[in-house]
């Protein structure tokens, strides 16, 4: 899915998320919910810095974080070389926000299928075929 579309879907689905940015781990912005590109770049850099600072806390394998303040919360989720960061109001439902961010990151990073295969309609069994699969 297009990263910008994934973020648009995120803010539409989650009423808790006020703004979000999708970026490379280096801090390069991929997409954001802002119309101002500079704002997205600043937020992407700040998210990468926070992730780096948290990663330097002594343990490896950091995959996500929440910083909860009285002014609001920020969430950062990492998947490989990409990250997504979002801001919410105070006291959000953290589990839901993490779930939505992980879904967004997965959708934004997955390659679009060349052509979606239509699901084949299941053939209805005729009355005479009932039980034909049973062992004789």
């Amino acid at each position, binding site marked *: 899915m297009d990263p910008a579309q994934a973020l648009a879907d995120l803010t539409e689905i989650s009423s808790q998320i*006020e*703004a*979000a*940015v999708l970026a490379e781990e280096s801090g390069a912005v991929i997409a954001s919910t*802002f119309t101002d590109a500079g*704002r997205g770049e*600043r*937020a992407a850099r*700040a*998210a990468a*810095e*926070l992730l780096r*600072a*948290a990663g330097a*806390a002594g*343990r490896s*394998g*950091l*995959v*996500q*974080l*929440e*910083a*909860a*303040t*009285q*002014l*609001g*919360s*920020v969430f*950062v989720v990492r998947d490989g070389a990409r990250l997504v*960061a*979002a*801001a919410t109001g105070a006291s959000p439902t*953290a589990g839901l926000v*993490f779930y939505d961010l992980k879904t967004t990151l997965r959708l934004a990073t997955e390659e679009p299928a060349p052509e979606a295969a239509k699901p084949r309609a299941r053939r209805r069994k005729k009355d005479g075929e009932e039980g034909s699969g049973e062992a004789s």
Partner: protein
Amino acid sequence: MRRRKLVAALAVGVASFVASKLLRRRTAQRRDRVDLYFEDGSMVSFAEGSDEGDRLLPFAFGLLADLRG
């Protein structure tokens, strides 16, 4: 009559005590903090006032400001 007043005063006292405890607990929960989640499923929380909390929270405030504009 006097006994009823005593019971009412006692009830008010107990209610005030419980309310103050709940308020204090709620206020304590509102301290700024950073929760880190690791791939093995573990989580570490750093509250303001701790070394790591005080180091990470400025980054979080910066990100919050950038995201909110």
